[in-house]
């Protein structure tokens, strides 16, 4: 902890409550919600914080997730800081306004309490829901711990509202293992968060104002006239802001660390890569068990490391390449599938990173933790074994399904 950082109050709570506390500290003006497993207790906590007056915000209980985000877009256009949270089928129902939000350049934070998707019918954790919306133009950050959820929700607003970014941010935490996992968490002081976030910088480019009438989201595009170039300007602006967000996310994490003493890797965390021959790439709450496994194998003399991805969209290619360049072979542990590639989505991102940066190495796809399945230290040890085998030329033809025999 740095000399400047201020310790907060330590409490014991689960990930959903930590998210709600983080939201309350960020002081949104309007919160719209529709409950869904495993997000429900998050919005119940928020609702009680608003009822008790601890959070001075308008709470809208609407009839479904499509209305949740539509209502919040209206609120954002009126200058409000907004928040919501959803999971799985709720996110699916939110899809139409979800894809409009980044194009409108309306900053907000929405928690995805990640859940596997139908079908078969399931209510448990997995990253499939968030992965299905990875190319919609939202920033996606995945949390490893309960503390990181609280911290990242607050940091999310600073990233989203940065004048050079103006994009919505999903702060994702794993359904079940983090949403209901209880542990210690430090709650920063309100004054610290107020000072960190500064004055609200919501959407003054598009705020509805009778003194300054404008049309929001008019018909744009087609071949001819100003259409094509105007449409390209929108798209290019969005993609450039996404790319630039990597720098801002790093700055914001550094600022938060200086104020709180809590250093979360902003893009990619390199864990014990010094002298490592192989590494596993992780996302979210699975990372703790991967680090424990790494330590145990290191103690036995095996040269292994962990590469954790925090910011998944925009994908941190340079940071990833820096990590990958230190090993000879890698395995990617996805908690979701890419139907189109018969592997995991992050496996594809890793292959793209290797291709884009000219690195060459065996890169295995592991798919585990679907629908609430556990990825334990023992699973990670078997995954490391498979990556070592791949490093010596024994490459499996398809993905390895981690929980297939559980």
């Amino acid at each position, binding site marked *: 902890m740095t000399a400047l950082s201020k310790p907060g109050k330590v409490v014991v709570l689960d990930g959903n409550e930590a998210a709600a506390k983080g939201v309350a500290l960020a002081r949104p003006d309007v919160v719209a919600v529709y409950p869904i497993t495993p997000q429900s207790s998050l919005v119940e906590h928020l609702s009680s914080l608003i009822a008790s007056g601890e959070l001075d915000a308008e709470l809208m209980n609407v009839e479904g997730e499509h209305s949740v985000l539509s209502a919040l877009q209206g609120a954002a256009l009126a200058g409000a800081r907004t928040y919501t949270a959803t999971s799985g089928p709720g996110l699916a129902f939110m899809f139409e306004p979800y894809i409009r939000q980044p194009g409108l350049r309306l900053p907000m934070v929405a928690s995805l309490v990640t859940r596997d998707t139908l079908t078969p019918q399931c209510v448990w954790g997995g990253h499939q829901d968030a992965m299905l919306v990875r190319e919609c133009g939202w920033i996606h950050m995945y949390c490893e711990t309960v503390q990181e959820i609280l911290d990242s929700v607050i940091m999310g607003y600073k990233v989203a509202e940065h004048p050079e970014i103006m994009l919505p941010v999903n702060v994702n935490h794993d359904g079940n293992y983090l949403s*209901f996992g209880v*542990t*210690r968490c430090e709650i920063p002081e309100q004054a610290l968060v107020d000072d960190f976030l500064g004055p609200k910088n919501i959407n003054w480019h598009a705020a509805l104002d009778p003194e300054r009438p404008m049309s929001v989201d008019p018909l744009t595009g087609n071949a001819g006239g100003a259409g094509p170039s105007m449409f390209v300007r929108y798209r290019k602006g969005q993609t450039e802001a996404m790319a630039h967000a990597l720098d801002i996310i790093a700055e914001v994490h550094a600022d938060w660390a200086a104020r709180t003493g809590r250093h979360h890797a902003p893009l990619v965390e390199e864990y014990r890569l010094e002298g490592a021959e192989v590494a596993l790439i992780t996302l979210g709450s699975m990372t*703790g068990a991967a680090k*424990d496994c790494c330590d145990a194998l290191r103690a036995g003399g095996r040269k292994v490391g962990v590469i954790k991805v925090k910011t998944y969209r925009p994908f941190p290619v340079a940071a990833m390449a820096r990590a990958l360049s230190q090993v000879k072979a890698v395995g990617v542990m996805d908690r979701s599938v890419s139907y189109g590639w018969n592997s995991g989505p992050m496996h594809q991102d890793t292959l793209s990173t290797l291709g884009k940066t000219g690195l060459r190495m065996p890169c295995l796809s592991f798919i585990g933790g679907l629908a609430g399945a556990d990825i334990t230290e023992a699973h990670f040890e078997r995954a490391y074994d498979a990556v070592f085998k791949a490093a010596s030329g024994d490459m499996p033809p398809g993905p390895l399904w981690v929980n297939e025999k559980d």
Partner: protein
Amino acid sequence: MTEIRIHGRGGQGAVLASGLLAQAMADEGRHVVAIPSFGFERRGAPVACFMRVDDKPIRAMTNIYKPDIILCIDPTVSKVVNIFDGMAPGGILVQAGKGDPAALALPGVVAKLGLCDAVGIALAIFKRPITNTVMLGAFARTTGLVSLAALKSAIEGGEFRDAGLKQNLEAVERGYHETQLLALKVAA
């Protein structure tokens, strides 16, 4: 690191108990993680909760397969679930139940038993078989991993839907004092 698995049935408050225990242990300066098993919450259905406690930060957010301690807050759930799964010889069992401990037919791995008539105490206090806070008292007495004072302080900070604070404080107190401790011979 000590790994604890809590077994019970939906409606007895196993998940709430794990949260209170986590709070009490954290208040005593320990690092602690509690993860509930994830089913649909139905009254009477078997539920489990996984806890780790250590003097250093805990990173694994996974279920528990080799418990050091089993806290079973229901007298009959062990008939439908193998609550001892993965326990190594020398383990501790904190069990809701009464009568002759020999009748429990415990496996040889259990070295220490704390037996508490939690249903009887809960019926006397709450008029319902809500055994969670009673069994927290039994847990403190049997394992010594947490103090009765820390548990009471955690309960004072908790929220109770089905019963009052005063009753829960009485429950944890009676659970602590009315637990029968037995050392068992471990079979290899």
